[in-house]
């Protein structure tokens, strides 16, 4: 059988932004945060680890659900490491222990609409 010739085309378009689906968990129940307070929390997480420069990193909250304290965040790709590491090391809010759960990260927002880990089969 003759060897087939093929051409492989790879398109690389670096995405300007990265999108994160995150969820904030508190040790105690019943802690509520509105969108503004959630944004303030993100800024203070960045400020703790990366100072004034870090706090100035533009982070957008695309969606926020107060009931579950979950959000979809958008950050420029160059700032992803700073944002993610700030969320990882954020442990207390108003003397209450908490932790960020990073559920999904993608350079494409569409990818966050479905998560194969949460898929229910059958």
């Amino acid at each position: 059988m003759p060897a087939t010739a093929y051409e492989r085309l790879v398109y690389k378009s670096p995405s300007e932004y990265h999108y994160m689906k995150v969820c904030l968990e508190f040790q105690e129940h019943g802690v509520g945060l509105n969108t503004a307070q959630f944004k303030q929390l993100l800024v203070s997480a960045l400020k703790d680890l990366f100072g004034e420069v870090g706090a100035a990193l533009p982070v957008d909250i695309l969606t926020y659900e107060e009931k579950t304290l979950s959000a979809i965040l958008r950050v420029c790709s160059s700032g992803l490491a700073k944002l993610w590491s700030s969320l990882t090391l954020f442990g207390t809010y108003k003397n209450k222990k908490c932790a960020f759960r990073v559920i999904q990260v993608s350079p494409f927002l569409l990818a966050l609409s479905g998560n194969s880990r949460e898929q229910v089969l059958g």
Partner: protein
Amino acid sequence: MVRFKHRYLLCELVSEDARCRLSLDDRVLGGLVRDTIARVHGTFGAAACSVGFAGTIRTCQKFLIQYNRRQLLILLQNCTDEGEREAIRKSVSRSCLLEKESAEELSDSAGEEAVEIVE
């Protein structure tokens, strides 16, 4: 292995209050710089600069002596009065002597640069 590169910044502290020069010493200044880095760059910044911070001050001092000597020579050229000229000549020769002494004390590691920042 990743090699840490050192960079030196020679700065002039400008203050409205003349008394602040008396209260500032190496340790206080070092603390102030560290606090500012912590404020602007956070925990990450403070950790990044904690390695080998104090050692840089010595190199800056050496450079400052050289710089001041050059300034004195410029002043010498612009001198009008013989008394002033004599005073400056004395300062320059004294600084040369000090530099010779300190060069014998210190053992420098090669490859360190001093960067001058003059306003």
